[in-house]
């Protein structure tokens, strides 16, 4: 097929060819925006991260956490469905079986996770483990999407870490160095609704 050069641009008229009137029109737009944002209503689109954030979707997948039963034990029955479903193969569960003398036969069948390890860096956050779980024991709706660690091995989390319930929204990011408090002002964590300094 022969190449056909298409030029759909129309011919400029005289006032457009001498540049200046068109430049004045463009300048008008700039100046209007400038004065509106400077002294008028400030409709800026910038979010003052990290003080201000966009709200997460209710379907956002974040840090995994394990749910608890009403008596405080973990819901997980160590059925290994999540580990099977995991495409990245990052869930490592060690099965434990309770064997107390007062247990009934039915209770002796119950299993529990002795250890539950997830490598958060290798995880692809696909959510298959959540879908595979028959007991609603593992969830990813914690909203903690910004996971920061100071060492790669800190990202491999154990059952104690996974059993922690999701943090409230204003505590979600900035893991300070171990044994150090967040620095005043700089790493200060402010709930988004209290942000006052949308300053210029």
């Amino acid at each position, binding site marked *: 097929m022969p190449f056909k050069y298409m030029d759909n641009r129309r011919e400029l008229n005289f006032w457009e060819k001498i540049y200046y009137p068109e*430049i004045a029109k463009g*300048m008008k737009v*700039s100046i209007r925006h*400038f004065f509106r*944002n400077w002294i008028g209503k400030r*409709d*800026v689109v910038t979010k003052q991260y990290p003080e201000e954030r966009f709200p997460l979707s209710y379907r956002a997948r974040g840090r995994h956490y394990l749910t608890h039963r009403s008596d405080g034990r973990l819901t997980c029955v160590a059925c290994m469905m999540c580990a099977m479903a995991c495409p990245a193969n990052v869930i490592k569960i060690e099965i434990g079986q309770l064997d107390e003398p007062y247990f009934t036969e039915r209770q002796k069948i119950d299993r529990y996770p002795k250890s539950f390890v997830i490598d958060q860096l290798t995880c692809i956050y696909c959510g298959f483990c959540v879908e595979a779980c028959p007991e609603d024991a593992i969830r990813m709706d914690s909203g903690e999407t910004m996971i920061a660690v100071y060492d790669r091995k800190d990202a491999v989390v154990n059952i104690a870490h996974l059993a922690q319930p999701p943090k409230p929204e204003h505590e979600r990011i900035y893991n300070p160095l171990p044994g150090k408090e967040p620095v005043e002002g700089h790493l200060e964590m402010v709930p988004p609704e209290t942000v006052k*300094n949308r300053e*210029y």
Partner: protein
Amino acid sequence: MEPIWQVVAALVKIALMIGFAMTVAAVLTWQERKQSAAIQDRIGPNRATIPFLGWRLWGLVHLAADGIKMIFKEDFIPVNANRFLFQIAPVLAISPLILVLAVIPFGGTVNLFGYPIPLQIASLNAGMLFIFAFGSLSVYSSVLGGYASDNKFGLIGALRTGAQLISYEVSQGLTLIGVFMVYQTVMLDGIAAQQGGAIWHWGVVVQPVGFLLFLAAAIAETKRAPFDLPEGESEIIGYFVEYSGLKFGLFFIGEFMEVVIAAMLITTLFFGSYHLPWLDWSQVELWLNGLLGTSWLPGLITGLLMLGVFVVKVLFFCAFQLFVRWTLPRMRYDQLMTFGWKFLLPLALANVVVTAVVLTIIDKF
């Protein structure tokens, strides 16, 4: 006046002028970011804080932060670079601009202790020609900077800069010939003095076409958008690719110095310099003399008022240039050359001819 006091007066004027130009150039780096942010519905820099106080000062602290950053960056020189030329290029970028400040008047003549003191560092009879001569020296800085850094992108940027600046210098000179013809002088203090009184003495009224053409040529000389082909920060890499630290800082501040000087020239040549319409500064000084008695005070107050008017006008045109820079997209290279040689130059020549004819007619009748 005794020589010693002449020296003192000159030193004070030099300090005023350099202090003003450098301060405005530094603040312009902040203003450009804030102004562009406001134009584009953003917020702009506001994160740098003064330690322990937590003041942000609308992002002004970023000036100090940038300076400190540049001082502590590695002063990198490429292995195969020509070391001498590489080192001297940033100096050449800024020293002609400081020299140019010498002939720009920031006020008329005031009387201090009975001596007339012109508020201009040097009243050269070459005037504007001196500015053209030293302004064109800044081409060397970019050409040498690109050539000496042994980098093919730097070299291409240097070539682009050379072609652009030389093209637009021709137009810049020709657009001003109309002004020289009207005011019969190339001395900037002479041109400024003749713009006093009624507003139709201003250059922009007697030379409107000359003003528009000079504006385009002057913005092209500052190497900023829409004529920023020498640099093109984001994509086309300019002549100072290999520069880092304070050497880059000199190029950077030099660009803003050029903005300030362009604003000063526009003010001086076309917008009445230190004059306000229908206000005679010598009358103001006489009136203050009657009010305060004959001492150094009326002269000082008048001088400061003239300086204030000049400064406000210069700041206005600095902001105007920033608006232009954040409004217009970059030109293609062929558009740049077409605009320079086929639009500005013929119109500048036509402006000279028309001005000459009109002046002759006015002279004869």
